């Protein structure tokens, strides 16, 4: 039995609860166990009475019927009154703690969380309005952080078990929840609101860092000194493109690979065959699903606010760099070229 309990407790924390990694967690767990012991008491009371009565008053041959009251107003009022008092006490603690849990302090650091099927974008309006570059939610330890949640498509959830916080992520609204992490490390972040096919894969990590580490990380966001194709690659990795588009030619089943797409002939469902030139690529990035492709669901989330025109230019440069259809000539060395450089047709 002990081995069994140990095995069950293997996920960290106690038998009942995961580790506590936020300021509020201790308070939540206190209330949880307060209610827990009330439940244990009443369950045992009912179990003992049930078993005792069932045994003591079991039917036996020849036993005469015992006299018993049909009701007892005093007893009935007592067991109406006692639960009433208990639930009011539980309500009070739950209410008090909840207000603490949902009202963010005014000095909280803000992270904007945008959910879509089936991923999150974590963006940091301060200091440089940039997006997390490893698809993880980084936050500093020991500092209140408020998460401003919204969705671009359907309902999602935002749940960090070790912080004991959860809020639905609703399209067309901004929900807020906050926490102060008390422990550095990497923790789970789960989507808790059913959102379709890959709901169960919508699991990300929260990285709690020391203030110094976090500042270094957040200040380096945005591709900093990267230029052109390198920044395009950075955007691919950090803007959610990499969830569905590969860059090495492998098939993900969700969207076409980016390898060799520039300059290729694309067969679209509505508009026939189109050449994937700069205009085409700009359109399909800025207006997702504008040209649905056979074999793929039109599932690309909106990119508005996520990728601007300068970003698209860098992405197109990156696409060129990984396409076999793009053969730029470099300017001739040593002087102005006498012939115009041309991009060879495929």
């Amino acid at each position, binding site marked *: 039995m002990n081995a069994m309990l140990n095995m069950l407790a293997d996920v960290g924390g106690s038998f009942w609860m995961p580790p506590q990694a936020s300021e509020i967690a201790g308070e939540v767990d206190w209330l949880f166990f307060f209610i827990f012991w009330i439940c244990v008491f009443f369950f045992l009371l009912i179990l003992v009475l049930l078993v005792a009565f069932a045994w003591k008053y079991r039917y036996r041959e020849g036993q005469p019927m*015992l006299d018993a009251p049909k009701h007892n107003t005093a007893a009935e009022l007592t067991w*109406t009154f006692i639960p009433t008092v208990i639930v009011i006490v539980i309500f009070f603690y739950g209410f008090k703690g909840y207000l603490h849990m949902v009202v963010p302090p005014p000095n909280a650091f803000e992270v904007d969380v945008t959910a879509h099927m089936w991923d999150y974008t974590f963006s940091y309006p301060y200091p440089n309005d940039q997006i997390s570059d490893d698809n993880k939610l980084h936050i500093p330890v020991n500092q209140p952080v408020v998460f401003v949640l919204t969705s671009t498509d359907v309902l999602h959830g935002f749940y960090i078990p070790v912080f004991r*916080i959860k809020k639905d992520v609703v399209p067309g609204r901004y929900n807020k929840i906050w926490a102060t992490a008390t422990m550095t490390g990497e923790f789970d972040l789960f989507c808790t609101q059913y959102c379709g096919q890959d709901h169960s894969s919508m699991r990300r990590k929260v990285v709690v860092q020391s203030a110094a580490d976090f500042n270094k990380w957040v200040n380096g966001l945005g591709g900093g000194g990267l230029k052109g194709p390198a920044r395009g690659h950075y955007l691919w990795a950090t803007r959610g493109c990499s969830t569905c588009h590969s860059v090495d030619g492998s098939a993900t089943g969700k969207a076409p690979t980016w390898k060799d797409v520039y300059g290729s002939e694309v067969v679209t469902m509505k508009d026939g065959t189109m050449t994937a030139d700069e205009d085409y690529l700009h359109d399909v990035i800025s207006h997702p699903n504008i040209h649905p492709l056979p074999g793929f669901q039109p599932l690309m989330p909106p990119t508005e606010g996520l990728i601007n025109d300068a970003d698209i230019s860098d992405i197109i440069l990156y696409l060129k760099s990984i396409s076999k259809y793009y053969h730029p000539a470099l300017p001739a060395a040593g002087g102005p070229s006498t012939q115009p450089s041309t991009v060879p047709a495929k």
Partner: protein
Amino acid sequence: MSIAQHPSKEAQPDNYLTHGKGFMSWAFTLDHKRIGLLYMAFVLSAFAFGGTFAVLLRTSLLTPNHWMIADDTKAKLFYNNMFSLHGAVMVFMFIIPAVPAILGNFVLPMMLGAKDVAFPRLNLMSLWIYAIGACFFGWVLFGGILRTLFDIHLPFGWGLDTGWTFYTPFSTSKAEDGMVAGVLGAFVLGFSSILTGVNFITSIHTLRPRGMTWFRMPLFLWALYATSIIQILATPVLAITLLLLVAERLLHVGIFDSSLGGDPVLFQHFFWFYSHPAVYIMILPGMGVISEVISSHSRKHIFGYNFIALSSVALALLGFLVWGHHLFVAGQSNVADSIFSLLTFSVAIPSAVKVFNWLSTLYRGSIRFTPAMLFAMGFILLFTIGGLTGLFLGALQTDVPLHDTYFVIAHFHYVMVGSMVFAFLAGMYHWFPKMFGKMTNPFWGRVGAIMLFIGFNVTFFPQFVMGAHGSPRRWATYPAEFQVYHDISTVGAYIMAISLITVLINWLAALKWGKPAPANPWGANTLEWRTPSPPPHDNFPTPPIADDPYDMSKWEFDPSIEGWVIRQTEAPHPPDDRTLSVPH
């Protein structure tokens, strides 16, 4: 009364099962007893259908990444279709109609000493509306499974992958095409529920026999009355909501989808305004059954009749005021959250009152461990756990981490399965002799009850722990750390399946080989036991007169028929003023 006293000594009289033969005599019967049996056939088929997929679903969760199907997309679609099927079938086709439509239809008119319900034709109509709705909805859901698994496209077999809750905007913008068909299925089933409710309320108002005042009504009738009120008031709201869903999906009218200018949270308010009261549609009739069973099988007057009767009404009314607790993390205002939390706790009080009253009924009783009684005792324990774990979810602060996790799954299965199914089975064992005129084998009935109790706890208790540790619901795949809980749970599901099959075999064996049942095998004093088992077509040779339904003192055991008969020395219906309930 002579028939009631010596049924086995009479020549085999005509009964409702033999009254009229052939398909038409059943399909177009106006007899509430036959309609109850037909409901039983449909509802139990739905239970088997939903149960099979529950077992499949748990089997696919044996490993962190689905092992039954190699293709990731296919496996996830399969899982999503399965849990939607399981939820929709169990809620709309099994739990809601189980006790009212099967036991209620069979027992209610006889408890009233009446020939039938108030509107027999309406009753027949509600049966066939149910059957059509259930077959259509079931087909749509099952078609989805075939489509995801084998790429078989049945007409209307679109499938549903929204869960039984149809949350927007997923359902109106992204979900599979079966959404509209599924919604229509639920819409049709709702009408069956409303018509049954209308029928029961009218019957209870107009058909009560001489001597049956409101506070001399069996508690099962109080429970059905409270249930019917909810069915009539809440179900139309669901119907309207479902129509709005269809309007948004097909006509793109912006109601719930924010991209069309609607509000997704509004849908949740509408949906739970029905679906929370629906929880009481499910559990209240079960509570009524338990009051009858506990009292009859401990041969004791029910304790605190008035408190139990009024707590049913209280639950029906309070059940309408608590829907907001399903939206604690959806982003409704903190003020609304707080008010709904307080109101939610009010539901705990009538529930606690009932449990303590049932326990007190056992006190100084003469308890028979019949299968019905074991199921009822299982009900008390499981309902206690289900109710107490509701305290964690009603309290705002502890609800936040537990919301939408397996803790909630475990909690509502303790109420819906642990309580409702146990109550249904208790009622089935209690009234089985009356329905079919055969006694079940008590040994195998007890085995079924004990095994189901064990299997149930093995299945659902680990889910509390898994949920508290943070595992969200509706996950086709999961991190490895949760596997141990899932595996224990799946083993429990297999035990449950075996127990339920045991129960079914026990019933079928009783139909074939069971001993003939006496008119009153348990010595209960409600009116349905004063007519032979099975009852004649018209229920009662002479209209019975009601007295205190829980005063069993005038019945004595007659070993020659293995049943209870009214003691000869007393008048058949002694007016007993002590049994009149005095309002407090």
